[in-house]
């Protein structure tokens, strides 16, 4: 164990907090300094992240690496326990990347009421919570990080959001809080049944020591906590509001990372620790997942606001992720993790573009938009790329998020009804057709044709330098993962097999 091994994760989680303190200590008037500090912080954090990526032993990606396990609250047996394995690694990297891109994107256009100092402070705080959640190996620590992201997002929506921001921000918070309160009860129940808060230890027990009935109950608490965050139908109603009202960067972080905290919770905590509870719940999760796929897709078709379309498409896409998880197979869970990363990249890009469209046209109403390809061809093409990726075009990342997830439902884990899951599979397949439909329709309305009269003379900025810098990594990664999905599968597979391989 050298110095880097034992400090890397701590640095990667808490460097943004150091940056946060520095940002708060800088006078509000020195905007440039504040921006530079925030950007440097995220870059240094990402440098630590790259160090982790290079030093990570990919041959042992099934076991936790860079482990820190120190005493934290001995009175309640909670430990400061961090570690990263193949499941967490892609999400961890994604979270760091997205944070940098968000700061770059905001550089010159902070949403009203401006105030970069507070805005960047919130982004840094978000990064602490996001990075921490993916590497926490103690239930209480996980809970803390899981909750830490709430406040900054609440303020980001509430202060910098759209006209209906107060409603959206409080709704977002109350929904998540409701879930996490019951989740905490479940964590405590696990503790009193199994005597530990350590996730690896609990996962190793694999449910031994808890009766089936109790598992089902405890799983229900965890399910609510995670499913609301994903969000699964019927707990999704906070999402369209939050996305629509949030500033662009808020939407990007919400879609790219925060939603994944829920699915990640299923994979890291609920499934491995309570396997027989998961067995009972899996058909229901699968059912809600496919309802989410179809419902999200149909809802998309009824939207007039571009951001709402993307928001509902998230409900639909996260349905595929959850379907993969519900099969309880290594294949399905690998697909789910891929889907999480792919959705993060692609939907992040979609929200970025939607943000820029709004910045130019001051509206997201698709009936008023049109002719983006004429007025801002580069932006139009990028939107087209993102749309193609999102609808699952083979060769782009979205395909590997959807297709294996559907395929995995063909043969679910032993003990789950094959017929039922094959039914889910068929419905999910219809969902892909619908998603092609609504995405292309959106693209057609926004990008094709000629600009509407009101914007015919408008001066539209095409993709600027900050946008190029923020979007290029997403485009390249979408392409790279689409052509060579093994980049992700190669990392996750060992970890997934180790935990779910039976």
């Amino acid at each position, binding site marked *: 164990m050298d110095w880097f091994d034992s400090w890397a994760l701590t640095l990667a989680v808490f460097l943004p907090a150091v940056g946060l303190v520095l940002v708060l200590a800088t006078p509000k008037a020195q905007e440039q300094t504040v921006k530079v500090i925030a950007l440097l912080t995220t870059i240094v954090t990402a440098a630590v992240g790259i160090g982790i990526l290079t030093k990570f032993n990919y041959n042992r990606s099934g076991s936790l690496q860079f482990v820190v396990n120190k005493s934290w609250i001995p*009175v309640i047996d909670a430990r400061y326990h961090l570690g990263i394995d193949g499941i967490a690694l892609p999400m961890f990297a994604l979270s760091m990347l997205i944070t940098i891109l968000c700061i770059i994107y905001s550089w010159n256009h902070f949403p009203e009421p401006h105030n970069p100092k507070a805005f960047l402070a919130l982004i840094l705080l978000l990064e602490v919570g996001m990075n921490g959640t993916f590497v926490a190996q103690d239930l209480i620590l996980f809970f803390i990080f899981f*909750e830490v992201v709430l406040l900054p997002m609440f303020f980001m929506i509430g202060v910098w959001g759209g006209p209906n921001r107060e409603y959206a921000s409080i709704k977002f918070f109350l929904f998540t809080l409701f879930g996490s*309160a019951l989740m905490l009860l479940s964590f405590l129940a696990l503790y009193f049944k199994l005597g530990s808060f350590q996730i690896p230890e609990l996962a190793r027990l694999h449910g031994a020591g808890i009766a089936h009935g109790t598992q089902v109950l405890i799983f229900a608490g965890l399910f609510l906590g995670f499913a609301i965050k994903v969000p699964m139908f019927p707990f999704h109603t906070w999402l369209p509001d939050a996305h629509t009202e949030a500033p662009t960067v808020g939407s990007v972080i919400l879609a790219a990372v925060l939603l994944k905290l829920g699915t990640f919770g299923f994979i890291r905590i609920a499934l491995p620790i309570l396997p027989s509870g998961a067995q009972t719940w899996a058909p229901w999760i699968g059912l809600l997942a496919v309802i989410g796929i179809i419902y999200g897709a149909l809802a998309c078709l009824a939207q007039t606001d571009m951001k709402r379309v993307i928001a509902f498409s998230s409900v639909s896409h996260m349905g595929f992720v959850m379907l993969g998880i519900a099969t309880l197979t290594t294949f399905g869970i690998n697909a789910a993790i891929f889907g999480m990363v792919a959705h993060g990249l692609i939907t992040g890009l979609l929200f970025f573009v939607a943000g820029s469209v709004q910045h130019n046209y001051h509206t997201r109403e698709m009936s008023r938009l049109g002719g983006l390809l004429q007025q801002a061809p580069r932006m139009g093409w990028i939107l087209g790329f993102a749309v193609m990726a999102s609808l699952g075009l083979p060769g782009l990342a979205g395909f590997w998020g959807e297709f294996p997830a559907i395929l995995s439902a063909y043969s679910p884990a032993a003990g789950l009804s094959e017929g039922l899951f094959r039914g889910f599979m068929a419905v999910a397949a219809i969902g892909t057709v619908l998603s092609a439909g609504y995405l292309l329709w959106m693209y057609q309305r926004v990008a094709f044709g000629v600009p509407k009269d009101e914007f015919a003379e408008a001066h539209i900025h095409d993709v600027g330098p900050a946008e190029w810098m923020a979007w290029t990594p997403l485009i390249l990664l979408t392409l790279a993962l689409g052509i060579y999905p093994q980049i992700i599968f190669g990392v996750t597979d060992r970890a997934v097999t180790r935990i779910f391989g039976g």
Partner: protein
Amino acid sequence: MKVHWDLHALAPLVAVTVTIVVVLIADFFFEYRERFKTYQLAAFGTLAALIPIITLARDGGTRSLFGGAFVVDTYTLAFQGFFLIVAYVTLLISVDHIGEGDYYQGEFYVLVLTSTLGMMIMAGARDLITIFVALEMISIPTFVLAGWRKHDTRSNEAAVKYFIIGVLSSAVMLYGISMVYGLSGSTSLSGIAEYAGSAGTPALLSIAIFLTIVGFAFKISAVPFHFWAPDTYDGAPIPVTAFLSVASKAGGFVALLNVIFFGFYASHTSWQPIIWVLAALSMTVGNLVAIRQTSIVRMLAYSSIAQGGFMLVPFAVAGVGSSKHASFEAVIVYILIYGAMNLGMFACVIAAMRRTQSDEISSFGGMSKYSPILAVMTSAFLFSLAGIPPLAGWFAKFVMFRSVLDAGTTPAVILGVIAALNSVIAFFYYAGVARAIWFRETPEGIDLRPLKTPFALNAAIAITGSFVLIVGIYPQVIARLGELAGAAL
């Protein structure tokens, strides 16, 4: 009986008593313009009284005085220290308010300290008579304090209501205590514990326990015995409200801890259901009514009723053997954390009202514009009260839930779920204030120049604020204190 005078054990009480006398006398000799010196004397005495607490804690051990009626152990010391610090912070938040309001300063501090002295006695009281005397000593000065603005009818109403309810509850409690004595033949808690453990639970004992608990329920403003609290909190000067909702309430809870855990514990079949109901009602009613409030002081009054409900939850599950210790510690930890965050909250309200001159939540609109730091601190206390990590409140809620699941019985888990739902409801009104501060515009007529707050008020916010942040990130400090205090059980 030979009375053993352990002066070291009594030193904290003596120090406060001396301070009270000195402040009272010195007040006569100061010129009118020098009256603030009484505050300095009072603050100095309060802090000085912490010294013997530290030396006693270093010595360790249990010191039993007056035939076991007064015991000094880790539990007693933890609460005596807590009450002294609360008194000190109360002085900090009062000094400018009282000084500028042209009120009688010396008397004010004397009354605060006298009430504090009662609380410190309560912490060590292990005899029903001592407990009763301590409780009256806590209450009577606060009756006067509630009516401090004597030309204000609302302040008078506050005092009268508080007084009448206080006397009524004392009477009910005393009736219960007399029955307990009649049955057990002892007023000492250990004697009562012995009786409760051997006699089973005769019906008469259940009635006695019921009456005693109802008496306490008034003191800690548990629903349905809460109705005096909002009017009293609203009418009293705000520093007094802070003191009532933190110190006086904590005093009531310490009394309840003593009586339940050291006395009635074995008869848990009779006290557990009563407290279950009180806890569920206090949380739910307190929260639901708090949502409707437009005045921040009334909102905080109902919030403190709801917080009291959360504090009652561990009591309601403590009868299950396995969770006895966890519950005891949970209540202690909850009180300590609640004290810091609620006092901090009131300090922020007092600071903000220097600008808004109104306690309407809407008048706090746009506070982030003229005082960003105060806005951040106010929000921190609000979210801590709501139990959002990484602020101290989460740990208070956590230990409460922990005691519930440690008990693990069906009624316990149901109460836990009720508490979980309530913590979501509570967030709604705490966030409502944060929304006004951050999301709304400043109302007409509010001066937008940066707000300057007096040094003492800033110090109070800094003390409570750093506590809330440090404990939130590293709860071990307070958890360990709770464990040490819990060892006295």
